[in-house]
């Protein structure tokens, strides 16, 4: 028995080592690292869980407070990979979405039983949208790999399927170009495992208009099993899969041209991602919590790295003017300090302070070359949308639904 157990352990260790070598070999040049520890049982591997991220103006040179990372996409089970830079890190959505124009790999489509390729239309709050087929690939971030992950190839040119009118009905811009999106794609790593979840698994007549099948180019909304929906790749990692941490330094009041930080996978799984003194705020089933400002509670408030300012309330409520040049942003005569209290579903509550400066002035600072601002605000009547400025200067943890955190807390939650 002992002999056999020892053999199995050695076999496991060899397999782990081989896997590590394969990952290393398949990502040559992309800077990924895999470290194996000499654990006596041989069953634990510690991989590099840190992906560098940067705030800059993005590939179209037009993005304010855009947080970008590189994502490596591989044909499943092969070393045929492509590293896509300038993917927007978005905690307000789930799944990898890459512009077809930036992807040189040929990936297998996700299809229904009739071999019709699955299509997706993701509309954003501002009316813009992304349209394209769902395909499957292995996703690598730092030393972490998720296998056979459904992702969206946006604005794929060869599908022969026109954008259905119900998709473009948001009224905004088709963001299927680098100029439109301001990024090469989106790395959606929010609080959920899938982009839609259970809501899209009901009968096709009862699901939200997110996924489509288009036989004969006539698109119909369809239900999609969880496994075929776009996936937050983090929860599919073999380890460090219960969430992640976005760590960015502080930004001075005038802004900064670039800001570098880290995307660290796992919460309390390695020495670099302990919760420490961070307070846990659980969210409701949709990822929202409550923000209280001047004794008024605003439900449906949320944290979102894909929102590029602190969007909250409106100029009438706050008594500060909107900008004349940059419509939709606040332009107080001088910087104003505010405080608000976030309250999780678990009752955890704490106040936080933030500042709002004159956006017209901010955008002119440094000849308009600054990309990162911690005091940029705009209107969002009736709630708080804690965008990128919220992330500067501290560690923000994102707990994924159904995944256990270090103190026994189960996602979805935030901690900071």
């Amino acid at each position, binding site marked *: 028995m002992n002999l056999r157990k020892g053999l199995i352990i050695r076999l496991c260790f060899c397999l782990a080592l081989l896997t590590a070598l394969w990952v290393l070999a398949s990502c040559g040049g992309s800077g990924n690292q895999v470290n194996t520890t000499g654990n006596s049982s041989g069953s634990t591997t510690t991989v590099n869980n840190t992906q560098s991220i940067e705030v800059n103006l993005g590939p179209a040179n*037009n*993005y*304010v*407070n855009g947080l970008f990372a590189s994502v490596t996409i591989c044909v499943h089970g092969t070393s045929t990979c492509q590293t896509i830079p300038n993917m927007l890190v978005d905690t*307000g*959505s*789930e799944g990898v979405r890459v512009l077809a124009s930036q992807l040189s790999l040929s990936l297998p489509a996700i299809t229904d039983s009739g071999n019709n390729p699955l299509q997706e239309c*993701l*509309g*954003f*709050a*501002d*009316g*813009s949208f992304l349209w394209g087929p769902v395909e499957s690939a292995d996703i690598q971030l730092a030393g972490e790999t998720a296998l056979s992950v459904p992702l969206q190839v946006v604005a794929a040119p060869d599908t022969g399927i026109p954008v259905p*009118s*119900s998709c473009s*009905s*948001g*009224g*905004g*811009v088709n963001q299927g170009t680098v100029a439109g999106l*301001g990024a090469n794609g989106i790395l959606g790593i*929010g609080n*959920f495992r899938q*982009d*839609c*979840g259970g*809501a*899209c698994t009901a009968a096709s*007549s*009862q*699901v*939200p*208009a*997110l996924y489509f099948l288009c036989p004969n180019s006539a698109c119909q909304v369809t239900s999609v099993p969880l496994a075929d929906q776009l996936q937050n790749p983090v929860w599919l990692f073999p380890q460090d899969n219960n969430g992640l941490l976005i760590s960015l330094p502080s930004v001075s009041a005038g802004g900064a041209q670039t800001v570098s930080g880290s995307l660290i996978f796992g919460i309390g799984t390695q020495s670099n991602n302990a919760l420490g003194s961070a307070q846990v705020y659980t969210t409701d089933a*949709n*990822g*929202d919590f409550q923000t209280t400002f001047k004794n008024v509670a605003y439900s*449906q408030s*949320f944290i*979102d790295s*894909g*929102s*590029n*300012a602190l*969007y909250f309330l*409106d100029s009438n409520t706050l008594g500060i003017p909107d900008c004349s040049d*940059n*419509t*939709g*942003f606040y332009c107080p005569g001088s910087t104003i300090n505010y405080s608000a209290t976030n309250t999780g579903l678990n009752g955890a509550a704490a106040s936080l302070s933030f500042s709002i400066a004159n956006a017209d002035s901010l*955008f002119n600072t440094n000849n308009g070359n600054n990309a990162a601002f911690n005091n940029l605000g*705009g*209107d*969002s*009547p*009736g*709630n708080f*949308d804690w*965008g990128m400025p919220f992330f500067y200067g501290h560690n923000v943890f994102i707990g994924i639904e159904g995944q256990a955190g270090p103190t026994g807390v189960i996602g979805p939650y935030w901690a900071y």
Partner: protein
Amino acid sequence: MKKLLAVLLLLLLGSAPAWAVLGEHVATVASDQKYLRGEVRATVQQGYSVQQITAADQSVVNEYVSPAGMVFGISWRGTVMPNLQLLLGSYYAQFQQAAQSRVRRRGPLVLRTDQLVVESGGHLRSFHGRAYVPSLLPRNVSAEVVR
């Protein structure tokens, strides 16, 4: 004296619910059977009424109707963005223009003119918003009722 007068009726509409769009008469608008199959709950408030429609995908649309039967406001919440072309009707072009003239802003959308107010926010799994036509607000009814 409480403002809320009565909850009038609870209707279960099987296949062809009435569906109204912003700025049009609640009774004259053709139904969009594809978009809405759900439960309609009508309530009467002081000076206006609300038709709350819970669609099959559990998204919710509220229509705010004046005593003359005009839809002066709408609000929504749901997993994905609603079909604003349907909801906004003839006001859609104004919204579309605002949505396409966005500069630097990446987040919720707010359009505020004398003719139309649209506020659209949230994120995947939790979108919400409202729209109203200031000139169609019934007498003594605040825009704040549209929520």
